């Protein structure tokens, strides 16, 4: 009886373990450690820099257009 219980217990444990490995692997560890926020921060800094550049370029072209209109 004791053997049967331990056997079913062992089967239950291995079946859950197997179920876990058969599920597609994702970067869960990286998320739980919070390292994903490092990536988010880095990407947002690059994106922010790109947008600041676009806005300054936009303003500079606007100034040139104003200068040209004054001359004309």
């Amino acid at each position: 009886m004791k053997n049967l219980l331990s056997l079913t217990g062992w089967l239950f444990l291995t079946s859950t373990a197997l179920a876990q490995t058969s599920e597609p692997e994702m970067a869960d560890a990286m998320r739980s450690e919070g390292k994903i926020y490092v990536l988010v921060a880095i990407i947002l800094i690059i994106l922010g820099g790109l947008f600041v550049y676009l806005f300054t370029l936009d303003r500079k072209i606007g100034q040139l257009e104003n200068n040209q209109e004054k001359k004309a």
Partner: protein
Amino acid sequence: MKNWLKWLSVVLLVYTCTAGLLMDVPRLSIVNETVRALYFHVPMWFGMVFLFLTSTVYAIRYLRSSDATHDIRSVEFANVGIIYGILGILTGMVWANYTWGSPWHGDPKQNGAAVALLVYLAYFVLRGSLSSEEQRARLGAVYNIFAFAAMIPLIFILPRLSSSVHPGSGGNPGFNMYDLDGRMRLVFYPAVIGWILVGYWIAQLRIRLRNLADNQPNNSNQ
């Protein structure tokens, strides 16, 4: 371009880069976590098609009116479209290397995209080879319409007729499992709109710069 549209593109892309990395995605084998590349790789192609379509519309308007400003618009939209296409090809190669095993898999969709880009590169070769400004604009506009008409079957139709490993090809319209997932749509659609707006913005900047250069009193091009 209206200022609020520029800020909308900022908001949408900041949201894409944050939610795209943090929000839940379906757990799928083979692609695993790289399914998130959908938020960044696919909007490049949507943006490219939008920019090329706008370019073609201006090409048609040029042919109807012979107004040089329409020609400038047509060229600059095609310019930014090419950049988006190259970024789409490069991101696709990185993704293919991980999921399909090699950067260039010879997949019909991949080949079609490359040929479409070559067709558009030939547009700039054609323009560069003509010295007469009017001829350049007229032939360029006609070729532009042809290039758009060639791109649509190369990217959207031919890959569906043969077997393709690329999602949304090989007889499967849409994104199937990806598109069915509502969680991914919440990030994907804002990403598409955001990148289209940025492409439109950059094209506008280039058009304004071209107009400035053309209006210079001592312009050697005229």
